[in-house]
């Protein structure tokens, strides 16, 4: 499969629709062949009645935005959220960090094969693939003791998060061991800072991503030293998060402007070389790690099976704590943003996306306003 044909170019060809920099064009899902009764099932799964309780159990969706063919065809909010309201994104931020790293490559700020400053073994690509080899413990509030990420954000290391990550010893040779690590993301943002002036650095996300995409709601928080945390702390409306999704679905091109280098999204979507799928990964249907993204691909040569059985294999995603996700479905030309406050493991991304995809029926029923690129 060639790089160009892996991601479909979403080109909005009808005169009544425009590229969503200013705002999304909105249509009813039924215009895209959606079955209303099926859509109700998707809705009752996503917004169950019991979420109104106070015990914080079950599926607790707070917002959904569905984009098809570059058009917003569905959105619904709960818990006081609305189309213009920001939501926390937690680790969805890592998709933005991937984009910032890609822009830095396109602009010649660095190459992914470059070493991280002051290291002779650790490269930018190792950080992108969560394979730095640093001795990092990624646990959250239910296991806070010994958690590197909690220490970084709330345990006193927030004065200089980059320096804190660097202080960790190596537990493996860089590139040889996959270990999902917010530290790798933060270290990448810290390394980026050393490649440019402070002024250029603090403007970088806005100049290169938020302004070109029209992500007006975006807020990106930093540590006390002024380094973007990069592993989390992006806050934006689900509509704006969908724009970040569209950039990736469209192979890094926004409208007519190339923002990410050619082939960047394809390379970023490949399963991390050092990853080995465990029995626990298979049981919990966790997506496989790609470069600051997650993949639903199978790789029989490495014994990796497709994590979400009812979702297309070409699906890639950004995932965040408490149920945040941006799912990209290239074949269906869909982006599904879900913001939530899930505090247990009741929610199934597989079931959620299956119910949504079931609402749309076979492809032939769709009104086509998107053209496939010529090979």
């Amino acid at each position: 499969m060639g790089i160009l044909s892996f991601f479909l170019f979403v080109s909005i060809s009808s005169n009544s629709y425009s590229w969503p920099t200013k705002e999304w064009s909105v249509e009813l899902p039924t215009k895209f062949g959606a079955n209303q009764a099926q859509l109700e099932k998707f809705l009752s799964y996503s917004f169950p009645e019991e979420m109104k309780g106070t015990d914080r159990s079950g599926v607790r969706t707070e917002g959904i935005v569905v984009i098809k063919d570059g058009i917003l065809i569905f959105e619904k909010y709960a818990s006081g959220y609305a189309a213009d309201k920001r939501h926390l994104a937690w680790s969805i931020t890592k998709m933005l960090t991937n984009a910032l790293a890609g822009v830095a490559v396109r602009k010649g700020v660095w190459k992914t094969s470059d070493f991280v400053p002051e290291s002779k073994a650790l490269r930018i690509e190792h950080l992108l693939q969560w394979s730095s080899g640093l001795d990092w413990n990624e646990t959250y509030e239910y296991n806070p003791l010994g958690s590197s990420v909690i220490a970084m954000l709330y345990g006193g290391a927030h004065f200089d998060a980059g320096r804190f990550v660097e202080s960790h010893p190596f537990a493996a040779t860089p590139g040889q061991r996959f270990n999902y690590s917010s530290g790798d993301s933060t270290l990448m943002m810290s390394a980026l800072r050393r490649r440019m002036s402070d002024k250029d650095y603090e403007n970088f996300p806005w100049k290169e991503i938020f302004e070109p995409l029209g992500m007006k709601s975006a807020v990106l928080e930093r540590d006390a030293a002024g380094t973007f945390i990069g592993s989390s702390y992006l806050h934006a409306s689900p509509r704006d998060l969908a724009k970040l999704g569209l950039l990736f679905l469209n192979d890094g091109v926004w409208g007519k402007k190339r923002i990410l280098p050619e082939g960047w999204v394809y390379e970023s979507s490949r399963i991390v070389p050092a990853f080995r799928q465990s029995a626990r990964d298979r049981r919990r249907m966790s997506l496989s790690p790609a470069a600051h993204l997650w993949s639903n691909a199978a790789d029989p040569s490495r014994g990796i099976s497709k994590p979400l059985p009812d979702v297309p294999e070409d699906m890639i995603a950004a995932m965040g704590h408490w149920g945040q996700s941006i799912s990209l479905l290239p074949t269906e030309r869909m982006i599904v943003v879900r913001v939530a406050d899930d505090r247990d493991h009741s929610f199934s991304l597989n079931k959620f996306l299956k119910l949504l995809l079931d609402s749309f029926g076979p492809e032939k029923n769709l009104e086509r306003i998107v053209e496939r690129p010529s090979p």
Partner: protein
Amino acid sequence: MKKIAIYGIFCLFLGAALWIGLNWKSILSFPRILPSFSAKEFCTCYFVNGQTEPYCRELVRQYFPLKDLHINSELKEIYARGFTTHKTARFVNERFGCQLVN
């Protein structure tokens, strides 16, 4: 029988001491995690994401209760106290949201 019980208690004590020794750094930083998390995430929830006070209190609720959480709307600061520590988070600006200041 008594000897076995004393031996068991001694082993438990030794195990606990070893665990504390190994996790000493984390244990020392533990008291500041709760107020830091609460101050920072309440600040973002309230001043950045524009949510209501009850929603933000529920968002930051953990299994250990906070002793105090105070909103200073004028300075755009959140003050949180838990265990023996207090922490403050401040809204910086529209781009960079909130930050812990101590």
